[in-house]
């Protein structure tokens, strides 16, 4: 496949995942509303919001890093997706997953967060820095069960290559990691709650305490870019989880259904629980989920 074809397919893949990710955001808002007995916004509301934000006539910038913050963020989101093969067996949807394995993806997730944190920092607003500090602190904690879970997968499948991990799960629903290594899946799914920052781990953006967290100062097209990234990044994470734990996907429909279900887990917890304080969230992640992660490795050692 020539480079041009590859690039074209990558763009198509990215476009699909963006649209799906934003729709997913809309669906989730709808679900939240329904749980609260409301009608909720239309499913396409995220698109309107993004158009509106990009249509703003003015914006403020606190400096170059502030300007680049959303760029870093969306680059992190797109990049994460770029390094994940979206659909198993499809050459067109494998993106640039040849450039690395699951560790590359795990670390590339930080790229956007770090850049965004820096941009928010230059905004000079204390709430931004507070939000970042909380987010980073929580991140260190939920990465532990997730890392343990991934290590458990490496022990199980003898590979870190995502495509190979998916390949090992082919052959029926029972060969998914969900059933072959349930402990790892439990640890990872709890970690995912932290990643998605819904309740009970939503202290980072806690709108009542620190108005909106890191993006407090961001407006207009910056905000539009952040909102776009939220769609892409969420979808990318779900695709990663799908590949690692739920057998991957062999076609687009399967991908959409599976990512929706995985995301729904997070939403399901989110609508039902109140919020943790940062230190409590840290303690939580380092207790039971970490223990589960350790067990997930330990079962292979015995």
């Amino acid at each position, binding site marked *: 496949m020539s480079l041009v074809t590859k690039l074209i397919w990558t763009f198509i893949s990215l476009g699909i995942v963006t649209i799906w990710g934003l729709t997913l955001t809309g669906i989730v808002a709808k679900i939240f509303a329904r749980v609260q007995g409301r009608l909720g916004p239309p499913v396409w509301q995220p698109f309107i919001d993004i*158009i509106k934000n990009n249509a703003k*006539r*003015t914006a403020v910038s606190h400096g170059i890093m502030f300007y680049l913050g959303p760029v870093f963020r969306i680059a992190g989101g797109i990049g994460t997706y770029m390094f994940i093969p979206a659909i198993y067996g499809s050459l067109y949807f494998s993106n640039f997953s040849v450039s690395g394995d699951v560790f590359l993806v795990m670390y590339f997730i930080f790229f956007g967060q770090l850049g965004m944190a820096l941009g928010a920092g230059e905004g000079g607003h204390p709430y931004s820095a507070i939000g970042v500090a909380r987010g980073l602190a929580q991140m260190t904690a939920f990465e532990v069960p997730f890392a343990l879970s991934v290590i458990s997968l490496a022990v199980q499948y003898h590979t870190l290559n995502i495509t190979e991990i998916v390949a090992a799960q082919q052959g029926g629903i029972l060969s998914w990691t969900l059933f072959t290594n349930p402990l790892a899946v439990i640890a990872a799914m709890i970690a995912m709650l932290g990643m998605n920052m819904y309740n009970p781990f939503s202290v980072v953006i806690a709108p*009542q305490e620190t108005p*909106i967290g890191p993006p*407090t100062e*961001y407006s207009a097209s910056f*905000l539009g870019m952040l909102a776009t990234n939220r769609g892409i990044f969420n979808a990318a994470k779900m695709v990663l989880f799908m590949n690692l734990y739920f057998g991957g996907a062999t076609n687009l429909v399967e991908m959409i259904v599976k990512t929706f279900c995985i995301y729904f887990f997070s939403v399901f917890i989110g609508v039902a629980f109140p919020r943790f304080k940062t230190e409590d969230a840290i303690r939580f992640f380092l207790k039971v989920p970490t223990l589960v992660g350790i067990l997930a490795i330990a079962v292979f050692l015995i």
Partner: protein
Amino acid sequence: MSYMDKTTGIPEQGITPPIPDTGEMPDREWRKDDKTLTNAELTLEEQDWFCDARPTPAKPAWGPVEKFYNWARANSLWILAFGTGCGAIELRPLVTARYDISRLGMQPRPTPRQASVFMIGGYVSIKTLKRIVRSYEQMQGPKFVVAVCSCAINGGMYWDSYNTVKRIDQYIPVDVYVTGCMPRPEAVMAGFSKLKELILAGKAEGQNLYAEKFDWYKANQKQVIKDWNMPDYNW
């Protein structure tokens, strides 16, 4: 002067003309140049900490594009609620299940930077006016103002108070007033629908009005706000 719609209690025009508009502008000599403000009330040190650019009117985009944009703006109204008085309580029922403004694409937003509708809920004292001006200026355009309650319109029961502003539109441009003491949520929602109509019609250009008549607005503000310890324009 009939600026109230007889049926809904909502202003007919997008912007009420500020009065008295004699065309006289305050002395402009103190300004450094046309693009900057002096921020004369700040100390020299503080002047370094605030941007001193002068707001300028923003041109709308090319016709059909602007129409499209206006559609998006009208369907994605993010509210910055300023609970200045008892009207503040009216926003709560709006977002709950009974009225649920989120189905109209509206949602409350905690920071002015990201909001597009400024909702002033009640009487405005001098002290509050300062905060209102600041928050309004920090919003990014196009931005719209909805003032709720009688007090916001003409001082209401505080008409003779030494400390309450009687007409907000002399200080910031107001797109829609909602009468009532207090107005029912239905009335507030009707106000928002009116605002939507205005936006879709391209009439909600309060931001540009503010920028064009900036000196007049500023003079009005400074007339009542005696301890003006902020920059002339809060970017």
